[in-house]
């Protein structure tokens, strides 16, 4: 298992992988369109079958704790206030006050201007601060603005950057433009002291229309140097469906075959229940492999999921069904 992403020149490596002397849009188009097509019926059948696994009690307890540790606890609202972000960060530090042994989420995910607030509240805890950047969620801004957005979040103390790709450019077939943008933002993720923030690339799969496009976008983003490929902003429906995540998990698995490097996967949006989360973990194990069952390589972008996981955790601990009165959040849909 390669522990950390290796520093490589993305363009040079892309030329090597594609076997071309100059990286052109045509070369990228030929390469991404040369990827095998996705068998949609088979994919959906596989996704459906993964959801029917019977998970025994001991495995379920492990899965709940693992899932909690993989959450990027997220608030991305226009109405976000410093108080709300402090509340979210406090909750990340102590997800279930009735049981201090509850693990903490991996990160708190906020808009760039809230990074400093989140960082201050989290102090020197291991919980990271992720910032959405590059004109999230639409991505409709000029490149200088996107890069400035990224550097701004970084300067405020972000450990991770969640960028969005230009879906318009991707759908219009301007793959080189998408590649260059991801590569440029990746370069901007290097701090003055040489350390690097990890880059999650949001493909907004709900806007990519087909599974073939999801596969192409996944490879394109990995080629450009993404540390994580992420499904969605959470602002578009459908967001993180299981079939789409399966396609992405296959992509990172095959990418490791090809290059020896691991890339993380982050489904985000629409994962609300413990049952959903456990099904995703089953998929990670079956498709990508157990190496990905770690919050360095797999994350859930979610806000209400944590509450449901805690309800289930309490249910196991007290031996009775718990209720939303015992969780510091709005009522989730199911226990």
């Amino acid at each position, binding site marked *: 298992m390669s522990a950390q992403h290796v520093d490589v020149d993305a363009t040079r490596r892309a030329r090597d992988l594609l076997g071309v002397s100059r990286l052109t849009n045509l070369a990228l188009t030929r390469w991404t369109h040369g990827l095998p097509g996705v068998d949609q019926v088979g994919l959906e059948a596989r996704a459906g079958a993964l959801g029917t696994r019977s998970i025994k009690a001991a495995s379920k307890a492990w899965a709940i704790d693992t899932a909690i540790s993989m959450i990027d606890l997220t608030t991305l609202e226009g109405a976000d206030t410093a108080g709300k972000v402090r509340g979210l960060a406090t909750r990340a530090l102590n997800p279930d006050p009735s049981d201090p042994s509850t693990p903490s989420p991996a990160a708190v995910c906020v808009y760039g201007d809230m990074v400093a607030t989140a960082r201050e509240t989290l102090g020197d805890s291991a919980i990271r601060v992720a910032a959405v950047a590059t004109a999230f969620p639409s991505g409709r801004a000029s490149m200088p603005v996107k890069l400035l957005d990224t550097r701004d979040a970084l300067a405020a103390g972000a450990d991770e950057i969640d960028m969005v790709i230009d879906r318009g450019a991707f759908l219009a077939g301007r793959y080189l433009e998408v590649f260059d943008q991801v590569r440029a933002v990746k370069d901007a993720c290097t701090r003055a002291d040489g350390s690097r923030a990890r880059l999650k690339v949001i493909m907004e799969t709900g806007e990519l229309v087909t599974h073939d496009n999801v596969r192409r976008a996944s490879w394109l983003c990995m080629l450009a140097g993404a540390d994580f490929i992420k499904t969605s902003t959470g602002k578009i429906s459908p967001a993180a469906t299981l079939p789409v995540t399966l396609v992405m998990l296959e992509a990172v698995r095959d990418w490791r075959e090809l290059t020896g490097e691991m890339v993380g996967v982050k489904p985000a949006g629409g994962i609300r229940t413990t049952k959903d989360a456990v099904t995703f973990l089953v998929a990670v194990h079956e498709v990508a492999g157990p190496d990905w069952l770690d919050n360095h390589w797999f994350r859930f972008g979610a806000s209400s999921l944590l509450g449901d996981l805690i309800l289930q955790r309490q249910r196991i601990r007290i*031996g*009775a*069904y*718990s*209720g*939303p*009165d*015992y969780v510091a959040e709005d*009522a989730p*849909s*199911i*226990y």
Partner: protein
Amino acid sequence: MSPRVEVRKTYKLFIGGAFPRSESGRSYAVHAAAGAFLANAALGSRKDARNAVVAARAAFPRWSGATAYNRGQVLYRVAEVMEGRAEQLVAEVAAGEGLTAARAKAVVDAAIDRWVWYAGWPDKLAQVLGGVNPVAGPFFDISVPEPTGVVAVLAPQDSSLLGLVSVLAPVIVSGNTAVVVASEARPLSAITLAECLATSDVPGGVVNIVTGRTAEIAPWLASHRDINAIDLAGAAGSPGVSWAELERAAADNLKRVLRPAGQGADASEPDWLTAPGVERMTAFLETKTVWHPKGR
């Protein structure tokens, strides 16, 4: 002409306004009092009860927030639909409880009349149970009854329809939502009542009915932290139900507990034909008192 093929009814659960099978896939045979096979009913599990609680909790804001007048109209509508289904209810009560047709008819009539009686109560509870309190200070002091929340109801084991109506209607009249465990041996009329509820403007989730073993499901309801009160009527005469355990579990989140008369094995169902009074309604209410300063 060849004889007509019998169309047999599958009795399912009633959760969130839908009629699902048990998530466990189990069912059990329901027999008439005389011993003949009647039908298969779903053998509900603790997870069905859990789903029912989720549905009941989700339905609570809308049902408790409806005007009392509207709740009264909706409940009266239930009685109208029951009247139309009276023939089926009479047949199920007669078979299940071993009554003559005439006696079963009287029981069903009483059940419908009981429902009508309760349907008149929503917009009267506040006047009867609330009021303006005389206080020693410059305040208007007002008390109003409010629903307690989600109420688990163990339906009476013997009186499968009249008993059920007599414990269910007073719970939902005031705006509570209910999770009912139907009579274990006589669940059929409960599901038929569910079909009346489903076709009479009662929002999905206000009443949820789980059929199955009371002793299996009741402990999970008693210990469930998202339930605000529990009516133990059906614990009387129910095999294998430990009252002390249920009450202890219910105490964990300070549920209101309504017990039937008597102790343990000596407990008995009341005569459901007698006038009910307001006790079953007041058992599932909270009193909110407001102090409002007034000038001279």
